[in-house]
Every structure is written in structure tokens, then in C-alpha cells.
């Protein structure tokens, strides 16, 4: 594992190496812990072990003695220790309470639905009183509904707006700063643009909420003041410095000899930048866009403050919208530890984590392939 033998004469050296190895090893373990602990809370939902239907099957009190001990505990929601402490009469009473409670539940088809089933979380459902099957996120309600699709669509909308604005802007600026500006100007421009990265996302969210929202509304004249569009514009503020910084580094990293050769052949500066430097920097530029995408999807505070937070299913950019990340931020504090809502929010977190890994992996694969093609080894 990188630690070589032959240090017996120097125990301190050996100790230090083991220490250094240990720390770096824990750093690695930590990443797995993140995955483990975010997923752990979501597991019962993932494996369909919870049924949160309002109307649960009822067992008549008389059948108590026929039930095996374990099944009885599960039915009453008691663990083995609690079960052992209770006498027969108490248990009988508990069962009676269950029967009574079940009688109060309205006998409609909605009450029998387990809204934590995968089908309910991702597919539309025909709820009573709705015209057609719909996607509904309504975790606090008589029948809590946990359909994640409206949130995914919300994230998609804000991310798309942000990328459409930020990527062209940041790439154009990185081309200008790295290829066309004079050296002296460049030394000023790069840190100045990167200063944008120093604006905390809560400040960008504040600016969108307090200043930009009313301004954009007066310009575009849409209905709700806070919506996916406003959130996307604000999100672009956070994405621009990420894309700019990495793309600029990639463009600057292209050997100057390429530019020189192109210029010596009679290219103009932009021809050299566009036809030689940009293609050579493509892997890095692509990485910049991927990271910008990740930043846009994962950003929380900006969308929490600027999107309006209505978890309605809508493809319109100008409707109030709630994203995946904002949902977790807004709702987790009010959930019961270990409850269904709590678990679903962790499930969302786990999905975000998986999405991050997939994006990274796919990005790396594509970048690797681009690089290979550039080197002609593919």
C-alpha cells in the first residue's frame, strides 16, 4: 500500500508514515461514510419495508392468541423488549385501540394507498378529486404524498435556465481573457471575474429575492414574482465563475507553441483561438461545463430563496417552483427523526449523491475519450 519496508532502524520514520497513511485512509473512508449514512436513513423506504397507508389491515382482538409472538409485536409496532414488559390485558387493549382507530378512517380508496411505494414516488396517481392522474408532493397532509417528479422537474428547469445563460457567457469570457486580451489586461480580468465566486450563495439568493425578482418581473411581466426563471438567473451567478475559471485554465494550458504555429501560418488571433486552441482545450472546457452543471443542480440556498418554493408540477419557467435541494433544506427541520418524511428526504439526498457520482463518472469517461482522441491513441 505504498509503505515500503526497511525502516526498522528508524521507528519515528515508520510511525510517521503509518500516521500519514492512516489520515489519508480515513479521508477515503469518510467519503464512503457519507454514502453509507445518507443512504442508511433512506433504506427502509428503498426496500419497501414501510407501508404508510392510512388504512392498515386490522386483526380482530379475538385472534390475538393465534398470532405468533413476533408478528404481534410487528402489528402493534412494539419491539421485543417492550412486548415482554406488557401483560396480556394491555396488549388486548392496544389491539382494541387499533380496531377502533381503523373504524374512524374514511373508507375511500385513497386511504389504502402506500404512498412510499416506488410507484407512488415516481408515477402519476389518480387521487380522488383530481381530474387526471397527477404527480403530487404533499408530505404534510391527511394522506402524505411523496411524488418526487415535481421536484425533479423543478431542478431541471432552474438548472437549464442557469446553464443556458451561464455557459455561453462564461465560455466567451474565458476565450476573451485567455486568448484575446493582452497579458496586462488578463492579469486584472481573471481575478476580477473570479471574485464572483466569492459571493456566498445566500447573498446571491438574497440579491435575487430582494432586487432581481421585482426587476425581472417588471421587464418580462409574468405572474408570480418568484419562479424557476428568477432562480435560474440567480443560479447563473454561481455557475459563471465555476465554468469560467476552469475553462480559462484549460485554454491557458494549451501550449503556446500551438498558437504561435497558427499565427505564423497567417491565422488571425480568433482563428488561432477558435480552430486550434479551443479544440485542443476541449476536454478541459467540457469538464468546466460538467462542473457547472453539478454546481447548478446541487445549489441550495439560491433556489430556496428565489424559486418561490411551490411544489407544483409545471413545465412553465414562470411558475413558482421547488427544487430537490430546496425541498430538503426547507422541510428536514420540521420532520420527526426516523419518520417517513425524514426518510424520504434522506432518500432524496441519496439520489442527489448518486446523481453526482454518475455525472462525475460520465464526465470523466467523456473527458478521457476526448483526450485520447486528441492524442490519437483511440
Amino acid at each position, binding site marked *: 500500500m505504498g509503505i515500503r519496508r526497511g525502516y526498522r532502524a528508524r521507528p519515528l520514520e515508520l510511525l510517521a508514515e503509518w500516521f500519514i497513511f492512516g*489520515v489519508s485512509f480515513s479521508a477515503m473512508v469518510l467519503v464512503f461514510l457519507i454514502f453509507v449514512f445518507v443512504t442508511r436513513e433512506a433504506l427502509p423506504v428503498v426496500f419497501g419495508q414501510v407501508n404508510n397507508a392510512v388504512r392498515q389491515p386490522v386483526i380482530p382482538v379475538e385472534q390475538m392468541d393465534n398470532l405468533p409472538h413476533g408478528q404481534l409485536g410487528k402489528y402493534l409496532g412494539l419491539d421485543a423488549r417492550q412486548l415482554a414488559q406488557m401483560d396480556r390485558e394491555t396488549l388486548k387493549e392496544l389491539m382494541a385501540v387499533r380496531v377502533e382507530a381503523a373504524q374512524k378512517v374514511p373508507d375511500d380508496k385513497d386511504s389504502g394507498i402506500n404512498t412510499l411505494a416506488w410507484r407512488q414516488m415516481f408515477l402519476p396517481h389518480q387521487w380522488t378529486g383530481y381530474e387526471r392522474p397527477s404527480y403530487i408532493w404533499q408530505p404534510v397532509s391527511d394522506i402524505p404524498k411523496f411524488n418526487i417528479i415535481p421536484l425533479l422537474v423543478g431542478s431541471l428547469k432552474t438548472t437549464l435556465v442557469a446553464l443556458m445563460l451561464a455557459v455561453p457567457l462564461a465560455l466567451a469570457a474565458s476565450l476573451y481573457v485567455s486568448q484575446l486580451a493582452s497579458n496586462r489586461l488578463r492579469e486584472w480580468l481573471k481575478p476580477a471575474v473570479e471574485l464572483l465566486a466569492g459571493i456566498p450563495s445566500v447573498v446571491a439568493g438574497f440579491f435575487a429575492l430582494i432586487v432581481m425578482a421585482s426587476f425581472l418581473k417588471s421587464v418580462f411581466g409574468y405572474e408570480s414574482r418568484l419562479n424557476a426563471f428568477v432562480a435560474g438567473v440567480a443560479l447563473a451567478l454561481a455557475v459563471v465563475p465555476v465554468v469560467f475559471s476552469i475553462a480559462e485554465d484549460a485554454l491557458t494550458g494549451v501550449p503556446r507553441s500551438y498558437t504561435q504555429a497558427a499565427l505564423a501560418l497567417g491565422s488571425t488571433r480568433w482563428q488561432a483561438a477558435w480552430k486550434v486552441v479551443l479544440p485542443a482545450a476541449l476536454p478541459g472546457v467540457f469538464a468546466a461545463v460538467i462542473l457547472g452543471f453539478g454546481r447548478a443542480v446541487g445549489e441550495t440556498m439560491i433556489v430556496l430563496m428565489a424559486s418561490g418554493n411551490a411544489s407544483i408540477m409545471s413545465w412553465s419557467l414562470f411558475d413558482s417552483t421547488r427544487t430537490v435541494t430546496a425541498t430538503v433544506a426547507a422541510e428536514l427541520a420540521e420532520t420527526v427523526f426516523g419518520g417517513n418524511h425524514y426518510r424520504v428526504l434522506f432518500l432524496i439526498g441519496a439520489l442527489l449523491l448518486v446523481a453526482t457520482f454518475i455525472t462525475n463518472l460520465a464526465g470523466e469517461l467523456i473527458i478521457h475519450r476526448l483526450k485520447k482522441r486528441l492524442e490519437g491513441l483511440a
Partner: protein
Amino acid sequence: MSNPVFNPIPPRRLDPVSLCFTGLTGLATVLILAILGVILANIVYHGGANFSWGFFTGGTAQDMFDVGKSGVLPMIAGTAARVILMSLFVIPAGVITAVYLTEYARSSSLHTRIIRGAVNNLAGVPSIVFGLFGLGFFINFLGQRLDAWLLPGAAEPVWGKPAILWASLTLAVMTLPVVIVATEESLRAIPQGLREASLALGATKLQTVWRIVLPQALPGILTGGILAISRAAGEVAPILFTGAAYYMARLPQSLTDQFMDLGYHVFILSTQSPNIDKTRPILYATVMVLLLLTFALNLVAILIRARIRTRMRAAH
């Protein structure tokens, strides 16, 4: 074989495509800077109006939405404390991991590749997920076990609830890649010859790392640390459930206390104010304090980095 003839060079002419390209990309750059300028000007203009010594040193004992009396001292203290605590965890851990990766590990070993992949992935994880992790691991797992072990039978949880310690640890995990990457970069920039020279004089590997490599890499390590701090100072999402308090009458006294936070306070003032128009002055002033803090940190990092770059260019 044709003989190339040297045709006369025509006079310089305006190339519209070239002009267009330069104009458009230049415009994009100007636009970005203009947006930055507008944001800063707006905040400084409105925030400066309510900027006073009393605001800096005032607490929130009376009413956090009271324009005349409330101040940001508790938030500054809370943010500073969590950031300092965080750097105590993240800088040693990040630097040591980077030292392992560049100085000790073989770059092709499985362990190195896994760490690198892990660090890369960690950098892309959304900040809110770190908040979930902090809650799930530090508070609900570690904290609850500490309670059961140290204080069995206590009515109120001491460790198993949001606290400044857990918030700092969560932020430390989040900023770990920043420190590792910056340190690694500066370690790699040190010429191999220096290490060889030291080893050839009979120094051990540890001595070489400690006396030659680390001092050379110090500015880069510093930059990484400052960048991590400035990133963490403005982050709100990871501390939402791990330690930040909506309101506290006193400053945090111990590691297990909650704390008020500048960024979270900006969020509260923006979204929970009973009268947004009335509280706008304190909102702007709080934003300005937060911006001053993060910009000052960023500026220092940018300056150090610029100095390293010039030095490296001079060395080539």
C-alpha cells in the same frame, strides 16, 4: 514544381469576423464584470447606510428584527468560531492526505486511485447533502452514542443534537477536497531536484518532507486553507440542521452549544422577516458584513496565488 512568388503584401484591412468575435467575447467579459459591479454597488450603497460601530458590536438580546438596536456580534462570533474550528480539523487532515498522495503513495496504487476518485467525487457533492450527512452521522449516530456512553440516563441529549462542533466537522468534510487539491498542486510544483538533493545528503524521507518540501509549499497550502475558509464562511446549507440557531440570547459557551450565523441570518432576514421593508436596512448591513468577510478572505487567497504564479514563471 511551382515557384512561389513573393506577392506584395496588401494593406491592413478590418476583418469583420475577427472584430465580431473579439467584440462578442469582450462583451461577455464586460457583462460579467458589470453584473458583479451592480451587485456590489447595490449592497455597499444600501448596506453602508446602516453600517455603524453599534451594529458591529450590538447583540440581538432585544429583538433580532429591531432596526435600531439589533447588531451582528453574535453572528460574527458564531461564524468565526465555526470557521476556526473547521480549519483546525480540515487543514491538518487535508495537508497530510496531500502529502501522502504526492510524497509517499505510488501514483498507480489502488489506494491512491480510490482516494483521488473519492476526493473528486467529494468536490462535486451538493452542500445540502453534507448537511444530511452531518445530521445522519455526527448527530444521530456519533452524538447519540456519545450520549449513551458518557451520560447514560440523561434526560436531555447533550451531544446528540445540533451543535457548533458538528457544524464545524460537517464543513470540514465539505472543504477537505479544496485543501487536498491546493496542497497537492503546490507540492507537485516543487522541483524533484530539491527532494533528490536532500535525500542525497542522507536526509530521511520525513526530514525531506518536513524541512524542504513543506516550507516550499507553504504559500500554496495557505491559499488552499484560505479558500476553504472563505467557501465555508458563506455556506449555509450544511449547517441548517447541524448547528445554526434561528435565535439565541447568548453567545455559544461550549462545543455542544448551537450558534447564530451570518449567512443563516441573511437567510432569516430575507425570508422570515415580519416586515421586510422595515428590516431591510439590517438585512443589507448584514449582507455587507458577510461579503466583506468572504471577499477579504478571497482577496488574500488571490493575491498569494498571483505571487506564486509570478514566482513560478520567473523560475522557468
